[in-house]
């Protein structure tokens, strides 16, 4: 879609998502089979052979399209493996969406998977090409924790206020996850638990960090005009944008670590396509990339939900709680649902899909009409960012420019 309207609009007609957790007895293959099986089961008349093309996103759990073709024994199908840091699942979705939007295929599947727990390391793993050794060998929480002091400095927020806002993000997302049987951590936690957890990086403790887990998710996409042939509750892609940052935030002075410029731009483009002019009031719910608690704080401003410098206050006021004006991460988010890298973007879609269909049970957001799925990877100053707007109704082609 870029900033232009696609030839055909796109709808999601079925999704699947494994529980995210320590899957000691499942391989990446098993998880993909589970997610794809659940996804297909929603459409009894569609068989695997009816899917024209596949995308699989994974950062490190497999190479090439065979990551999906082999476990499913797909015969004669095009399968594309994609990778874009922690936005890998979204990237699989985005490319699959383009494929049906172009008219090249009628039915496509986007999948994502990650198997992180088979190593003995906590935290995310990645393999980098040979280098000159000059990059800081920092952890993901260290990179993202740079947001905290910079945000405080820029907006004059005291230590206690910032800590309370970050704690509230974690407590909220765990409370949401406690209502979700697929979440890695299904236990509400007290603020003291967050604040007394062992420190990892800067002000961030273990409980400021997303769950490291195994999981997979899948979606079937068709052209919007065909959607009701498959289901009476399709969910429509109203806007979508992806930005791979130039890395300028770390390569030149000027960037101040209080925002993700890549997210701001992607959100602007997705909102424009979706006809959203005031996201703070028009969006029903949002799934955002809460890899670490300060990330969610900053994203509330980057996505236009809070005024600059005010998100910490809105968070403390409960605006983003499940019963707040704009529920964020109703499924628990990366924080308590978990973060198997290649699957996360599609997991966000899965929650939006579930909520917009009114199938979220005790965490259902009333009258959900428009949802945002926002996914990013990399680190502040040098990231990749994805934003999608999903809705219960198709776009009216006349009302949206492009």
């Amino acid at each position, binding site marked *: 879609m870029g900033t232009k309207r696609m030839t055909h609009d796109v709808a999601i007609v079925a999704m699947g998502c494994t529980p995210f957790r320590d899957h000691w007895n499942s391989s990446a293959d098993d998880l993909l089979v589970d997610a794809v099986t659940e996804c297909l089961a929603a459409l009894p008349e569609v068989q695997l052979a009816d899917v024209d093309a596949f995308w699989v996103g994974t950062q490190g759990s497999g190479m090439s399209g065979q990551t999906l073709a082999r476990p499913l024994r797909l015969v004669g199908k095009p399968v594309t493996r994609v990778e874009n840091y922690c936005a890998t699942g979204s990237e699989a979705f985005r490319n699959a969406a383009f494929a049906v939007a172009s008219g090249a295929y009628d039915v496509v599947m986007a999948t994502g998977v990650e198997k992180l727990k088979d190593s003995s390391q906590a935290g995310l793993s990645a393999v980098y090409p040979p280098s000159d050794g000059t990059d800081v060998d920092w952890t993901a929480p260290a990179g993202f924790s740079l947001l905290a002091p910079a945000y405080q400095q820029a907006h004059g927020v005291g230590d206690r206020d910032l800590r309370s806002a970050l704690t509230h993000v974690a407590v909220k997302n765990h409370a949401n996850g406690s209502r979700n049987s697929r979440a890695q951590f299904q236990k509400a936690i007290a603020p003291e638990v967050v604040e007394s957890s062992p420190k990892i990086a800067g002000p961030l403790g273990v409980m400021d960090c997303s769950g490291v887990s195994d999981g997979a998710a899948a979606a079937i996409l068709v052209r919007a005009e065909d959607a009701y042939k498959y289901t009476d509750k399709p969910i429509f892609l109203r806007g979508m944008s992806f930005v791979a940052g130039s890395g300028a935030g770390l390569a*030149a002075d000027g960037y101040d670590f209080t925002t993700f410029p890549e997210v701001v731009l992607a959100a602007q483009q997705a909102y424009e396509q979706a006809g959203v002019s005031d996201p703070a009031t028009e969006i029903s719910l949002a799934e955002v990339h809460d890899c670490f608690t300060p990330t969610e704080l900053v994203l509330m401003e980057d996505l236009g939900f809070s005024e600059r410098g005010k998100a910490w206050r809105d968070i403390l006021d409960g605006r983003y709680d499940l019963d707040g004006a704009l529920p964020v991460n109703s499924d628990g988010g990366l924080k308590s649902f978990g973060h198997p890298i290649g699957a996360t973007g599609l997991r966000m879609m899965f929650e939006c899909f579930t909520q917009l269909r009114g199938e979220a049970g005790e965490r259902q957001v009333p009258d959900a009409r428009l949802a945002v799925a926002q996914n990013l990877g990399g680190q502040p100053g040098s990231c990749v960012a994805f934003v999608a707007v999903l809705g219960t109704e198709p776009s009216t082609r006349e009302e949206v420019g492009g």
Partner: protein
Amino acid sequence: MSEQLGIEAYAAYLPAYVLEHNQLDATGLPRPGGPTRGVAAFDEDSVTLAVEALRHVAGATPEGRQLLLATTSAPYDAKTAAGIVHEALGLDPGVAAVDLRGHRSGATALDLVLRAGASAALADVRQTRPGAPDELAQGDAAAAFTGGTGAATLLARAGHTTEVLERWRLPGERTDRIWDERFTADILVAAGREAAGRALVDAGLDAVDHVVVSSSNARAAATLRRALGGAGEDARIERAAGFTGAAHPGLLLAATLDIAEPGQTVLLVSATEGADAFVLRVGDGVRAARGGASVRDQLAARQPLGYGRYLRWRGLLDVQGPARPAAPAPAAPPMHRRAGWKFRLEGSVCDACGTVTTPPSRACAACGIVAEIPGKRISLRDQVARVVSVTTDHLTTMPEDAVDIVVADVEGGGRLTAYATDVPAGSVAVGDAVRPVFRRLWTTDGIHNYFWKLRPQEDNR
């Protein structure tokens, strides 16, 4: 090279830490007034010490001269350590880079500075077994000299070679073995007196203003100081810094030049594996000849280091680290391609908008204009930078519980993301001034990974 021989410029570098006691079980107070030793941080070695000493004085070393690194603690066998120093200083490729090894190499390097106009770093990291009788009497430091006459001229020199088993170490071993110092002191004192006597005769002097004695044997040093009429200022420096191996004659000479008046005379005797004696006349330009802070100021600015931390830094205490893979080893081709960045901290300057991009890039990080090859380069290593944001990594693979990592903007343009060093974790704040220092990040797969870190800017250094 002028007819006159001597020292053009000099500098000393003392690491930021001092070890004041070595009690494993700290049940009582350390002995008051006892020796203390300078301690190189876990990210320092003889190469990084040499860079820090030389960066103030050796930038203009002309083609055809030599860059010497004298040490008993080279980071590699077989590979020339001076080549790494040469690259970090950005010297002309026509300057040769040579390692000198062994206890006597410091005095030899000084001789080659004085007589051949070489540039030299004398740098050493001294290691004993924990609890060794002389553990606190050894120390880590570097001194640097360039040839010329700004700081001092050479009046005379004499050398005396004696083969004696005094201090030795087999390849792969970490600590020196030592013969009974009462026997070796006799040998070294005799050699020192002989060399000093000849040098003074050749200089036509009966007495000098400053006597400086460096010896690998403390007993010999004390005897020679008394015999040559020294005032003991060199002993006071040594008691604070420790005996710094190959660096020691350079460190004591630098400390003397710090306080000597123009026109005064200096007798420097280095008694190790024989002896070397130099008689110098202090030059009119001695004050301007010093690069960086004085030895005494650096000694006063050191921060105390706990013995447990010292043992951990040196790998003498095997401590559980984080559940993280070791930092990856650098690869030779990218290190070579990006030597300007890695060793000299060079960024690229945009022809169109003037923005500095780090690491250097064909395309400007601000405006995206693609530069002609080669683009303009600017070194950021001598600039001050301001901290934009900071974090404390509690899962560091370094031998510390936590290490600060900062993003800092260089005055005049450029952004650096780097480890903070010589500062307690959690103490760097947004807005602080920092400056680059050359350090060893880590060693993986037998490859030492050198790069720049950021150290808080001191007012007095």
